[in-house]
């Protein structure tokens, strides 16, 4: 069982990129003293986006590609409390038009997850968890000029509840988190959203993330498969006007369906492989992304 412990948080982070700054949303823990290292690559592309609620393409962008490379780890402080950290590097590029893409380090993230409650009855297990997270911009990247910008450029503090029901090899899980965001800064001291602002600071709307998943482990404990639904709802923010550019404080919403697998090819080595994919089925002020992620994990004990 211990092999599976980084899968869900890794996927959640990789899929969410900066857009929701999601914190780990699974129900699995490293044992005390155990660490899991991971390296993930995410390839996110879209050629249609929602301008407000209007679905459109933009031939001056063509296909927007956002690549993310993220090293991360999860560490068991106790059997019921884990610390998770990640530091993504992001590159954006458009296939058409003259706008130059950008690349660089995005937001450093740190999460603490704790199992708050466990109820067992026969082969059924019901657990309740809470995760507190913080992401902080880790470079001076420009938050302006969405969708080219690496991220939103703001501090994001989140608190999430997770509930999981497990029966034999099957489980169902749901989570929801609230994100409090600090202001972001752009490099101009005047901008118009739905009114003038005479400052280079942008008041970022808070956000709600949510998700559910249905998963299964094989009896040998070497393969795990999961179907996911997740999303983001920005609480406030404004719509991109017709033919206007994106802005960090837009009302960014999405709903995404996905699937993923994690596989431990060689028993006992601590080495794992992750693949997943997701597709945005509904959105607002965001691209309709197809997101593919692959990565490797390696876990071992650093103390007992």
């Amino acid at each position, binding site marked *: 069982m211990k092999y599976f412990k980084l899968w869900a948080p890794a996927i959640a982070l990789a899929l969410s990129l900066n857009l929701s700054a999601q914190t780990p949303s699974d129900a699995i823990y490293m044992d005390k003293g155990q660490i899991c290292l991971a390296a993930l690559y995410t390839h996110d592309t879209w050629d249609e986006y929602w301008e407000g609620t209007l679905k*459109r393409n933009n*031939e*001056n962008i063509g296909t927007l590609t956002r690549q993310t490379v993220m090293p991360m780890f999860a560490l068991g402080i106790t059997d019921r409390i884990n610390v998770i950290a990640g530091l993504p590097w992001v590159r954006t590029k458009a296939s*058409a*038009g*003259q*706008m*130059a893409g950008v690349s660089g380090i995005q937001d450093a993230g740190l999460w603490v997850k704790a199992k708050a409650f466990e109820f067992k009855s026969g082969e059924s297990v019901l657990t309740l968890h809470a995760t507190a997270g*913080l992401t902080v911009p880790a470079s*001076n990247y*420009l938050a*302006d000029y969405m969708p080219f910008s690496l991220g939103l450029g703001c*501090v994001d*503090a989140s608190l999430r509840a997770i509930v999981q029901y497990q029966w034999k090899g099957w489980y169902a899980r749901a989570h929801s988190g609230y994100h*409090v965001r*600090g*202001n972001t800064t*752009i*490099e*101009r*001291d*005047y*901008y*118009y959203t739905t*009114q*003038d*602002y*005479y*400052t280079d*600071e*942008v*008041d970022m709307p808070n956000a709600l993330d949510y998700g559910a998943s249905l998963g299964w482990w094989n009896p040998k404990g070497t393969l795990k498969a999961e179907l996911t639904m997740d999303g983001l709802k920005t609480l406030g923010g404004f719509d991109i*006007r*017709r*033919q*206007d*550019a994106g802005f960090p404080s837009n009302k960014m919403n999405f709903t995404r369906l996905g699937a993923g697998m994690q596989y431990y090819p060689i028993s006992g080595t601590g080495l794992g492989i992750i693949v997943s994919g997701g597709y945005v089925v509904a959105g607002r002020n965001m691209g309709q992304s197809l997101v593919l992620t692959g990565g490797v994990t390696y876990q071992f004990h650093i103390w007992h």
Partner: protein
Amino acid sequence: MALAFWSCEKDLPTEAVIEPYTFAGLDENGGNWAPILLANGSEIGIPAPADVTSAAYLAELEDLKNAASGLSSSQKAAVQYWGGNALVRWNEIARELAAKYNLIPAPNPDGTYPAPDAANPSQYPLFPFANPPYTCRMLAYWSAAQFDAMIAAWYHKYQFNRPAPHEVDGSIKTLLPHSGLPAYPSEDAAIAAVSQAVLSAMFPLEKDFLTAKAEEHKNSRLWAGMNVESDLVAGDSLGRAVAARFLARAATDGMKNAQTPKPVSDSIAQAAQDRFGWHWENLEIPQRPVGLAPLFGKVKPWCVPNIVDVRPGPPPAPGSPEFQRDAEELQDIQDNLTTEQRHIANFWSDGLGTYTPPGHWNRFASDALLARNYNPLRTARTFAYMNMAIMDAGISCWDAKYYYHYPRPSQAIPGFQTILGIPNFPSYTSGHSTFSAAAATVLAHIFPEDKAQFDAWAEEAAESRIYGGIHYRFDATVGIETGHLVGNYSVVVAQADGAE
């Protein structure tokens, strides 16, 4: 802990904080200054006011006392909002509307582009598209009309010398500093009337919004105990009459022909191709069939008698050593862009969805005016000469842009990418540079102690376009030169208007 930290965050500033102040000077002879369009300050007459001992005036004083008693908090807020420098307030409103309407039309599904229609402003794309030529012209008409209205108001103020209500009746407590100006006609009512009329013509969909603002502005004078109703009525009628003069000029200044049909646009490009061997092309997909305002260069200027007289010489031919040098500089900058260069490019971007470079300079002018406690007449004069210079600079720049029809770096340098969006008009000369140098020239004349700052801003605005990858250095350098040249025409007019 983080939650507690954010719970005390402050609201971000959405408007200037302007404390009401005592005017630094009254310019008692301002009624004799030379206006822009009016023959003189006395040309538009207003009725002589009732004597302050008359029953009619005393009744107005009673009404004023009633209006100023028991004010709501929103009425008191309006007094403060309008009571600092009402011209700067209206300038702020004009800038906000420019930003709101500065959106380029989206393509139709069939790859064609719709255009705003002044006759049907609420149909997409909304009228106007407040791009830099549109916005500079809007601000020029607004501020030149305000200047003439203030000269006329000053003339009649000192002609009739009606005292302020609190000077007649000591029991009237005002909420604003006493100005020392004769009260009839009310300068505020004239400012509100000009703003309402000119800005409604420029932004027809905002007429209700602007009317409500103008009403609040005028009423704030009653609430503050500063003017009686007849002061306001006279100022309002004066302002409307002046605005009508300026709107009549606007109707025939050539702007309605500036955005040409495609055959005219194509012939302009062909003329440059025949003359120079090059022409600019819009590289958007689908291609925009016509650049922005190809005939804005033919619009009637304010202070430059003949715009071709200030047309700069030709740019270096693509492929020439001078061109190669500046093209290589651009590539080098884009390959090694520093954080500071990126910051400068973004700070001055003033692109779509913003108040444009003319708006940026109006903001600088506002700050300079507020720092000196200028009276409304001098405030209007500053805005007028600066914005006439900016519009003349725009006309001159557009004349050069479409005469030379020079390709943007992204067109002339294979594979060249930029960090800013590429404007829909030719490269040479840089609009930012020309607008900014013209504005800086006028502001430096009016505020000579800050000349170095204005010049530095203009230089940085010009440089920012090179960092953004959308202009060659020669676009910027020549734009600055032309801007100074054009700005000086306004300075010469200003020097002769009697205010100095």
